C-alpha cells in the first residue's frame, strides 16, 4: 500500500488540469482568427473590417442551394456581371464587355484581360464552361429553389440546359454554353429572355476553380480555397464564424475598401436578439422580431440605422392533399382566403402588410389587378367568404370538417390565422407544429383530414417576371396542388415507378398534371409556356401578368402577408444599399468611417 502524492489535493489537480488543457487548446480553441483589424494606414475610406451576421450553413457550394451561396456571392466569387448597388441593372464583373444577338438568343461575353484566380492562375472561359457543366450535371440533382437542390434557374432559358439537367439529353455540347476561346464565352438561349443578364448575377452562375473543386482536399476549406472575388476565405469555424481577407489578385483590388470581413454564423431558428448588434459586436444584421422592429423604429438613434426593403417576402398557404374532398371545392378555398384576417395577421409586425397576391409589388410592373378579388380583406371580403361557405354547405362554419394548420415552427402568425378564421368563418382549426422530420413527411403525405400548410418565403432571388412566375409557385407546383386525391396518388406512384426511364417519367408526370389538375392550373401552365413563343419583351410581360392572375384565381395557393426585410447597420458602415434582389449587397461596395455617427 502506497500513500503516494496522488492521494493529495484532488481539487488542486483538477484545477491545474483545466488550466493546462486550456493553455494547450488555447492556440486552436478559437480557430486561428486574430480578431483584430488590419487597419489601412491610408485614407479613412480604405482598410478596416466589419462583422456581419448570417444564417448558418453547412457548405458554400454556390451550385447547391444553401444559405452559404449568398455569402459566396457577396465577396468570395464573382460572376460575369454584377448588379449595380441599387439592383436595377448590371455592371461589369469578370466580363468587361458583352454583346447580344439581334434575336436576343445569343450572348457573347468577353473576359477581362489578365484576370486570374486567387492562386494567380488565369481565369478562362473554359473554367466557366466547366462550372456550368457541373451545375447542370443530372447526378447533382434537379434545379429548384429549395435547400440542397441545384441552384440553376430554369427561367434563365439556356438552350437544352433543363433537358440536360433532367437527363433527357446526355451530350453537354448540345447545351447552349460554349467557350469560344480563352476569353470569350457564348450563351445560346431557347428564347429571348430580357432577364438573362440579371439572372447571371444569381449564385449558380458564379465560376468555380476546376482544379480546386476536383482536387482531393476539401475545396471549401480556407487552406484549399481558390476564388476570384474581392475576398478570400481565410478562416471558417463551423457553426460559429468565418473570416474573409482581401484578395490581392482581384482585378479591382484597389477599389476594395475593407481589409477583412467577419461573419458570425447564427443557427437557423436559433433565438437571435439584437444584443450583439447593440453591443457593437455586429455591424450588419437582419432583424425580424416585431417587438425589436417596433423598438428600433421608436428609437430616434436606432431608427436611423435601419435599412428597410419593402415587401420582399410573402407568407402563403397551400391546402395539402387529403382524401376528404372538401378543399377541392373552389368555394371553400375562396372562403378560406377571403375569411383570413390578413390585416390582423399583418398587424403583428410593423414590417408586415396584408398580401393581395403571391407576387409582391416589388416586381416591376406589378398591378393590383392580378389579385383574385377586388377586396381581399375587410368586411365585404369576410361577408363574401361567409356566403361562399354557406353555399358550400357550411353556414357559419357549421359542419365544416376539422382543419389542421401544419407548420415547422411556432410563431404568432399561426395563432392569428387560426384566431381570425375562427372569428370570421366560425371554423375550428388546430395548430400542428411538428419537428422538421415529421414536417416533411406530413407535407407530402395523403391525409385523411383537411390540412393546410403555411410557408414563409423571403425571396432573395430575382424579382423579374419570369423568375416570380416560372420559378416560384411554378406551373408544376400549382398543377400538383390542383390534383385531386386520386390524381395525386397517381402522381406519387409515377414518381416512384422504377420501370420508367427519366424521359418516360417526365412524360408520364406531365400527362397526369395536364389532365387531372384544375382548369385554372392547367391554363396557368399553358400561359407560362406561351411566354417562350414571343420575342417581344412587353408582350412577354403581358402574358406573365395574365398567367400570374390565373394563378391567383386558381386559389390553390393563398397569399397571406407580405413582409419587409429589415437590416440594421452601424453608422460607421458606409456604402450599404440594400437591393431587393439576390444577395442584398456586395462587400466590395462597403467601407467604414469610424467618425460617422
Amino acid at each position, binding site marked *: 500500500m502506497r500513500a503516494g502524492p496522488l492521494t493529495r489535493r484532488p481539487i488542486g489537480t483538477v484545477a491545474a488540469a483545466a488550466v493546462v488543457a486550456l493553455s494547450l487548446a488555447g492556440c486552436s480553441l478559437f480557430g486561428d482568427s486574430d480578431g483584430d483589424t488590419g487597419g489601412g494606414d491610408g485614407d479613412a475610406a480604405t482598410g478596416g473590417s466589419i462583422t456581419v451576421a448570417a444564417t448558418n450553413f453547412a457548405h458554400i457550394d454556390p451550385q447547391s442551394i444553401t444559405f452559404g451561396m449568398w455569402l459566396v456571392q457577396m465577396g468570395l466569387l464573382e460572376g460575369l456581371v454584377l448588379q449595380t448597388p441599387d439592383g436595377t441593372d448590371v455592371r461589369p464583373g469578370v466580363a468587361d464587355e458583352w454583346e447580344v444577338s439581334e434575336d436576343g438568343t445569343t450572348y457573347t461575353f468577353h473576359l477581362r484581360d489578365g484576370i486570374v484566380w486567387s492562386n494567380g492562375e488565369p481565369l478562362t472561359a473554359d473554367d466557366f464552361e466547366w462550372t456550368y457543366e457541373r451545375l447542370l450535371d443530372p447526378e447533382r440533382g434537379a434545379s429548384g429553389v429549395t435547400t440542397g437542390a441545384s441552384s440553376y434557374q430554369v427561367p434563365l432559358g439556356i438552350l437544352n440546359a433543363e433537358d440536360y439537367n433532367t437527363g433527357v439529353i446526355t451530350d453537354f455540347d448540345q447545351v447552349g454554353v460554349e467557350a469560344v476561346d480563352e476569353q470569350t464565352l457564348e450563351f445560346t438561349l431557347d428564347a429571348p429572355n430580357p432577364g438573362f443578364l440579371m439572372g447571371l448575377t444569381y449564385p449558380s452562375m458564379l465560376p468555380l476553380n476546376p482544379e480546386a473543386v476536383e482536387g482531393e482536399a476539401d475545396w471549401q476549406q480556407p487552406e484549399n480555397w481558390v476564388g476570384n472575388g474581392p475576398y478570400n476565405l481565410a478562416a471558417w469555424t463551423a457553426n460559429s464564424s468565418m473570416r474573409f481577407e482581401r484578395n490581392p489578385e482581384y482585378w479591382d483590388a484597389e477599389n476594395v475598401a475593407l481589409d477583412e470581413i467577419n461573419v458570425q454564423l447564427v443557427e437557423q*431558428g436559433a*433565438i437571435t*436578439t*439584437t*444584443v450583439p448588434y*447593440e453591443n457593437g459586436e455586429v455591424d450588419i444584421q437582419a432583424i425580424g*422580431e*416585431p*417587438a*425589436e422592429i*417596433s*423598438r428600433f423604429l421608436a428609437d430616434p438613434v436606432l431608427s436611423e440605422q435601419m435599412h428597410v426593403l419593402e415587401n420582399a417576402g410573402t407568407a402563403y398557404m397551400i391546402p395539402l392533399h387529403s382524401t376528404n374532398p372538401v378543399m377541392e371545392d373552389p368555394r371553400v378555398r375562396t372562403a378560406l382566403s377571403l375569411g383570413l384576417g390578413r390585416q*390582423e395577421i399583418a*398587424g*403583428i409586425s410593423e414590417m408586415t402588410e396584408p398580401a393581395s397576391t403571391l407576387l409582391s409589388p416589388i416586381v416591376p410592373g406589378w398591378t393590383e389587378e392580378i389579385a383574385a378579388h377586388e377586396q381581399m380583406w375587410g368586411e365585404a371580403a369576410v361577408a363574401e367568404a361567409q356566403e361562399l361557405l354557406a353555399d358550400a354547405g357550411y353556414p357559419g362554419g357549421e359542419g365544416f370538417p376539422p382543419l389542421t394548420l401544419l407548420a415547422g*415552427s*411556432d410563431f*404568432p402568425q399561426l*395563432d*392569428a390565422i*387560426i*384566431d381570425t378564421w375562427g372569428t370570421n368563418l366560425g371554423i375550428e382549426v*388546430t*395548430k*400542428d*407544429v*411538428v*419537428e*422538421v*422530420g*415529421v414536417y416533411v413527411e406530413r407535407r407530402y403525405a395523403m391525409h385523411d383530414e383537411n390540412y393546410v400548410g403555411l410557408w414563409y418565403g423571403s425571396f432573395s432571388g430575382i424579382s423579374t417576371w419570369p423568375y416570380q412566375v416560372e420559378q416560384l409557385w411554378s406551373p408544376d407546383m400549382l398543377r400538383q396542388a390542383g390534383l385531386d386525391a386520386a390524381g395525386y396518388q397517381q402522381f406519387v406512384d409515377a414518381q416512384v415507378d422504377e420501370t420508367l426511364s427519366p424521359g418516360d417519367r417526365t412524360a408520364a408526370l406531365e400527362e397526369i398534371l395536364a389532365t387531372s389538375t384544375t382548369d385554372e392550373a392547367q391554363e396557368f401552365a399553358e400561359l407560362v409556356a406561351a411566354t417562350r413563343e414571343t420575342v417581344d419583351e412587353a408582350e412577354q410581360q403581358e402574358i406573365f401578368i395574365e398567367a400570374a392572375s390565373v394563378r391567383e384565381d386558381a386559389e390553390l395557393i393563398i397569399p397571406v402577408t407580405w413582409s419587409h426585410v429589415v437590416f440594421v447597420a452601424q453608422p460607421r458602415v458606409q456604402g450599404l444599399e440594400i437591393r431587393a434582389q439576390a444577395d442584398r449587397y456586395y462587400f466590395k461596395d462597403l467601407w467604414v468611417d469610424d467618425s460617422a455617427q
Partner: protein
Amino acid sequence: MAFISLWVVALLVLVAIFAPLVAPYGTQETDYGHQLAPIGSPGHLLGTDTLGRDILSRLVFGFRTALLVAFAAEVISVLVALVVGLLAGYRGGRADGILMAATDIMYAFPTYLFAVLLVTVFGRSFWSVMAAIAVAGWVTQARLIRAQVMTLKRRDYVEAARSMDAQGPTIAMRYILPNALGPLLVTTSFAVPAAITTEAGLSLLGLGISDMPSWGAMINEGVRYASSAPHMIISPAIAFAVTLLAFTWIGDGIRDAFDITSEARR
C-alpha cells in the same frame, strides 16, 4: 422555508386546478389593439404578448399544463421505477443485473434522442412530452429505490418478517415499500421542478408541447423578445423560479424531516 413553500405550492396547485376561474382571459383570446402591452397595463396585469393575449392568463394555464406534465411523468416514472427498483433490490441476482445494465445504458444514452423520437412519432403533444420526461427519469428513481430496498432488506424487521414466514411479495409490499416511500417522496418533490424545466427545455429545442399553453413555449418566446419586450420573459421567469424554488425547498424540508426522525431512532 419548506413550510412557506408548501403554502406556495398549495396555492399554485389551486391556481392550476381553478385556472379557468383565476385567469382573467382565455389563453387564445386576442386583443389586436393592445399588443405587447407592458406589465401593469389596465386590464392586463402582466401585459400582453404579440397577439395581445393576456400573459397572466397564459401563465396560469401554462402552469396547469406544466404541473400536469410533471405530475403525470412522475407518476409513470415512479411506478416503473418502483416495480423495477423493488424487483432489483429485493430479488437481486439477475433482475438486479439487468437493471444495472439498463442503468449503464441509459446513463450513456442521450435522452434527447428519445425525446426526438417520441415527439416526432407522436407529435408535439402532451402525451409524448410527458413520456419523454418519464423515460428520462425512471432510471434514477429505480436506482434510488433499489439502493433503499437493499438497505431496508437487511433490517432486522425484514428478517423478523421472514422468520414469521412472510413471502417475498408480502415483504416487499408490506415492510419495505412503506419505509422506502420517504426517500421516494423526496426525490419526487425534486423531480417535479426538474420535469417542468425539461418541458421548457424541450420547447426551446422545438420539441415542446404545441397544442396546449405551456411555460416552455412562453419562455421560448420570451427569450426571443428579451431585449425589446422584457415583460414577456420576466413574468414567466419569476413564476418559473418561484415554482422551482418552492418545490426544491419542499424537497429539502421533507429530506430534513426524514433525517430528523432517523436521528431520533438512533
